[in-house]
């Protein structure tokens, strides 16, 4: 069964630290970026102010980059390519600045000199109003706080055994994430994650004096600029499935489906080998998204 990945609500401070990725090994199994607080994130729901946008591709083959400021102290980056046509169309029509909500997949990208950056590849991006942004701030704050509490519980238990954590009332999946996070990043600096929560509460309650007693001079924890190449190597099965589905649509000019040879050469151009293509089309057939009207054609359902 195909259970849709949950959309995590988290702040950029946590997202941008999620540089460790668990690659889906089996077919259909998704990849996860693990955050320093132990969230195993495939999809996110994030909101904030779209402050910058730029199409670094062409009009026909757009590659949009944008920067969204989610709290006073943080931003995250979005990248939209030709295989997210709805999101590409949407961002083209948004004037900066604007409150936006983004639902998308997390992508990690490692530069030649070994630095890893995290960005979001939106499935949808939409303009929202201020109350909707505030609601998101609250959900992200509650969700972050709950992860901080879980992390704290795990650290004070001082165990690296998942079963022990589960017996403390931590859900199995959370326990798994927490242990990976501790292993990869060590004990998190809670100030980094408390600060955006405090900022969020301050934004929602401007008339209250909100002070969690944090030092006010914590440096902002995000990179200034990131470069994402169009042909970036960080690509998983889900990406390739998307590409093949789009190609099937593009190549189906007469309603009979796409010719296999044409699909194969087009896929090659997208960097998908014929062996990979075979695997992907089998998966798509299993998922009921594609069928073979005859031996020469493949068609999207």
């Amino acid at each position: 069964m195909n259970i849709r990945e949950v959309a995590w609500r988290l702040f950029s401070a946590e997202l941008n630290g999620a540089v460790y990725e668990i690659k889906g090994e089996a077919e259909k199994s998704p990849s996860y970026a693990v955050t320093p607080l132990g969230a195993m994130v495939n999809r996110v729901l994030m909101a904030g102010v779209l402050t910058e946008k730029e199409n670094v591709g062409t009009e026909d083959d757009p590659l949009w980059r944008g920067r969204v400021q989610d709290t006073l102290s943080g931003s995250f980056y979005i990248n939209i390519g030709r295989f997210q046509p709805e999101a590409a169309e949407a961002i083209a029509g948004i004037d900066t600045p604007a409150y936006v909500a983004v639902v998308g997949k997390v992508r990690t990208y490692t530069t030649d000199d070994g630095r890893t950056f995290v960005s979001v590849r939106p499935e949808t991006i939409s303009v929202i109003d201020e109350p909707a942004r505030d609601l998101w701030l609250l959900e992200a704050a509650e969700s972050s706080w709950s992860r901080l509490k879980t992390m704290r519980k795990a650290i004070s238990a001082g165990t690296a055994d998942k079963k022990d954590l589960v017996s403390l009332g931590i859900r199995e999946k959370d326990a798994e994430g927490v242990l990976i996070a501790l292993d990869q990043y060590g004990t998190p600096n809670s100030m980094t994650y408390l600060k955006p929560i405090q900022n969020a509460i301050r934004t929602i309650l401007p008339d209250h004096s909100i002070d969690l007693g944090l030092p006010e001079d914590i440096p902002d924890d995000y990179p200034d600029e990131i470069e994402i190449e169009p042909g970036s190597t960080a690509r998983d099965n889900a990406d390739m499935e998307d590409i093949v589905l789009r190609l099937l649509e593009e190549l189906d000019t007469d309603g009979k489906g796409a010719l296999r040879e044409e699909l194969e050469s087009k896929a090659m151009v997208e960097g998908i080998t014929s062996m990979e293509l075979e695997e992907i089309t089998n998966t798509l057939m299993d998922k009921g998204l594609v069928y073979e009207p005859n031996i020469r054609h493949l068609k999207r359902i």
Partner: protein
Amino acid sequence: MNKEDRITPLFEDLKKVLEGKVEDAQLRNTIKTYIEDYGVDENRAKAAIIKKFDPSTTSGFVTADTVSKKIGDLTGTEMNIDLTVKIVYVESREVSIRGKATPILSGIIGDDTGTCSFTIWDRDDITLIKGGTYSFRNAYTKLFRNQAQVNIGTRGKIEEVDADIDVRSTQMPSSEPTVAKIGDLTEGMGSVTVTGRILSIEARNVIANNEPKTVYSGIISDESGKVQYSAWNDFSLNEGDTIRVKNAYVRSWRGIPQLNMGDRTEVEKVDDNLIELDDTVNRRTVAEVINVGGAIDVEIDGMAIDLREGSGLIGRCPTCNRAVRDGECSLHGRVEPVADLRMKLIIDDGTGAISAIVDRGNTEGITGISLSEAERMSGDAGDPSVVSRRIAEIVLMRKVSVNGNVLSDEYGPTMIVKGISFKPVDVKAGAERLYEEMEATL
């Protein structure tokens, strides 16, 4: 174009290919079954029907060869397999598929490598006896809740085998007795004790294993949720009774757990005070529902984060009610579509995500856009997608409360929505609460 016209060309084609291998009337009926009852694509139907009546043909269509498999080796993706199995448990019932009452046989089969559940679709020509050994041929499998399920469709065959096999019990019925809350019941529980109140009861006469029998069914609830039950004995159940059910077992239908009271089940009346039902009975998170596979009559609050394709102003075929694309019904060709409004939403509450299918009345209610207004918008713009875009603006990224039944199939969990409304959230109060908690903890 009427529906006969869709069948006839196929019939003529197939008659030529299958010359003399099948009676005309039977062929015509088979085509109808594929095309009309199951909505099978014409080419797929052709291939399947040729294979059905002329198994020797390769016919140029791509079809997988049959392989013999053991239950323990099933992956849930097999298209065409043979199995020799013993019937561990079987029951017959009727389900509604696209509005048509369809008989199904379902239960558990086993061999020396394990057990799994099976379903035989729309085959009143098949009778299975518990404990009997059969060969299931041309079966296919699906993966459901990480377990393979064996299915026999129209082209499957079942033959009795004169042999006995030792069944290695892997999952059901599980012998370990468990006490459970109704909201935690899930497929695979084989000996479960629950305490709950009978909310409804209904008696039905059915034919099970060739004998007339009365089945009592209805809804039973505790504080954690509601579940459908069926009882194969008269336990003198009455509406409003609070009962403790021992040694019942759970079977799922499309992901929705059902409590079954069989021969080994004991039922006793208990003190009504043990169960106190209030408004919160139906409240669940998405994760809670997904964990058990499905549920009846639940209420979920979450963010509407996506409006899927096929939402907004759609056209339906006047004959079969399927959604049409570009004025073409997949069965009936070009039709004069009947306009309808609907939403296919993704609801995500931060614990998980489910699809929610919202009908016209509820769509009109929450969006404030009536069907006739939607038609006018579409007409003015010359493009029906203005309607779904407008709906997206109204509902997306807003918190909604939905209620209905949640079922699961290979596409994941889906709620058939009975009611939907915007859920007002007092963000300021929420932030105050969070701040207080953090201050107290830090």
